[in-house]
């Protein structure tokens, strides 16, 4: 994300530009500190694993812990499965609602907002109640519970994925592209996979990465469904260890930052393409 400098032509205040710039930078600095100070403190704390010396001992212990990597990999796999399922459901839905059923849009948008309305605790107990007795017995084994968990995560990431895809569809004038493809003889499957999906790359990626962030850090539902993912592992850690949780927090932060960096990088390439097409 690049910050555009205020050009004198646009500045409407009577104050000179330099004062205005200074003011902007001051605000920027204050807000950054609000985020950076706790982060720095956490990082500093995580370096105090060894007595009297700054070291990466806490990180070493973290990665040596036998239950860390399995929990981490479970979360990653859950996240990937969630992303995949979510894409498969959301993209055709958003596409259909945009093209054929614009009247259904308010209904779909309402549905995608439901996850925000229901607290996680209420949700998880509802699920357990529903799926722990025949004929819908899905919580009998660890793996079947895991499948239920993934399905719940798919619901939780609907708002982000749908909004992302919806914006992407608007940006590419999906109606005209579809009609062009149809006039050339393409069926729905071809259109979705050869025309729509490739042009939604950025939107899909940003939706996917948001989903990734949600699933990786999710705690409540995983905990009450007795799943050994990263969330419950982290909460266990805070109860028993002193420095490892901070190390864990920094690791999680670093992963999220890397993910955002990827969206930005990919997004820049694609938005330049889109800008050029619009400029014609």
């Amino acid at each position, binding site marked *: 994300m690049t910050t555009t400098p205020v050009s004198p032509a646009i500045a409407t205040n009577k104050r000179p530009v330099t004062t205005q710039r200074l003011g902007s930078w001051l605000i920027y600095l204050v807000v950054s500190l609000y985020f950076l100070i706790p982060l720095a403190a956490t990082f500093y704390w995580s370096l105090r694993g060894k007595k009297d010396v700054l070291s990466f001992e806490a990180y070493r212990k973290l990665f040596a812990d036998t239950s860390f990597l399995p929990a981490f990999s479970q979360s990653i796999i859950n996240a990937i499965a969630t992303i995949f399922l979510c894409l498969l459901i959301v993209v055709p839905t958003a596409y259909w609602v945009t093209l054929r059923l614009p009247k259904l849009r308010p209904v779909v948008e309402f549905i995608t907002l439901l996850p925000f309305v229901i607290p996680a605790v209420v949700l998880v107990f509802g699920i357990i109640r529903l799926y722990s007795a025949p004929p819908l017995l899905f919580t009998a084994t660890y793996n079947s519970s895991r499948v239920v968990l993934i399905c719940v995560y798919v619901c939780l990431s609907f708002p982000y994925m749908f909004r992302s895809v919806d914006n992407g569809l608007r940006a590419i004038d999906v109606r*005209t592209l579809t009609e062009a*493809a*149809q006039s*050339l*003889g393409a069926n729905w499957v071809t259109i979705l996979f050869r025309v729509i999906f490739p042009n939604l790359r950025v939107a899909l990626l940003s939706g996917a990465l948001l989903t990734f962030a949600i699933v990786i850090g999710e705690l409540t539902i995983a905990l009450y469904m007795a799943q050994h993912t990263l969330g419950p592992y982290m909460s266990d850690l805070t109860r028993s260890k002193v420095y490892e949780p901070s190390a864990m927090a920094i690791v999680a932060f670093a992963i999220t930052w890397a993910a955002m960096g990827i969206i930005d990088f990919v997004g820049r390439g694609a938005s330049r*393409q889109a800008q*050029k*097409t619009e400029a014609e």
Partner: protein
Amino acid sequence: MSYLSISHVTKQYGDTVVVDDFNLDIEKGEFVSFLGPSGCGKTTTLRMVAGFEIPTAGKILLDGADITDKAPNQRNVGMIFQAYALFPNMTVAQNIGFGLSVRKESKEMVAQRVDEMISLVNLEKHATKYPYQLSGGQQQRVSLARALAIHPQVLLLDEPLSALDAKIRVSLRAEIRTIQKKLGITAIFVTHDQEEALSISDRIVVMNSGLMEQVGTPFEIYNFPTTVFAANFVGSLNNASAEVVDPANSLISIDGVQFESGIDLKERRKGDKVRVAIRPERLSFASEQKKANVVDATIENITFLGSVVRIQLKIGNTKFNMDTFNNPFLELPKIGAIEQVTCSREAVLVLDE
């Protein structure tokens, strides 16, 4: 039996009739334009031929087959959009080859056809470029190549030149017409620009509010418009209300000034109110050459338009425009002067209201 037959096609959205009883038979290889203002139903009719709208009533037959209810991807029509609609994720070559690859043609076949089309639209150096790297005119040519690659039975063009600047518009429309003639492909061209329609069509359908106003060759529509709308929309026109003075001799009077018309008025009665139209270029100064009608006119204003000089006159109480070719050595009359103006019988058109 005509190649493309649109018969009694009507399109209604709820209570609104967007296209009202459209009838047209198009021959193979013919270039037909649908001309009209925004909202007249021309694009809707085109989209019904393409399959993006289903008619509320009526039939569309292509080469004998009824395609009225066929899905758009079953129709073998090539469509060109105002917004180009090129696939941003594919190169020029991939865009052009899309229709063929959908039909699962062999790679060699696709490559050969793509090369053919690229040379047809003169884009040899741009085959590996992406749409965002091309200008508007180039993108539209790719769009044309893409639509033609699949050997469509009909080519449908939805205001393809409206998004381009003036010079490109003129050169590209000539290119489209040349390619169409060369391939002998039937085409329907939708536009609101009457100059476009006049310059490249075999026939024009003038439309207004869902109705067909007139169908004819550009020459017929311009010189012999049958309705007030057609006369006004195509080319500029002088419009006046007049009264029939002598039906047998086709004499009418505009504000007391008498004109003889070339139109047969025997069906009318003396005193009938009619609408009369005279094209500005059909009026001239009587000092050059006297024609059937000679009247006095007051010069109100003179405007220099480049190749044409437009003179605003008053005949009786009605304002008229007179267009004459620019001639640097011509002495133009002074404003306020009264001059004798003439026109032929045939120039005085009597229109249906």
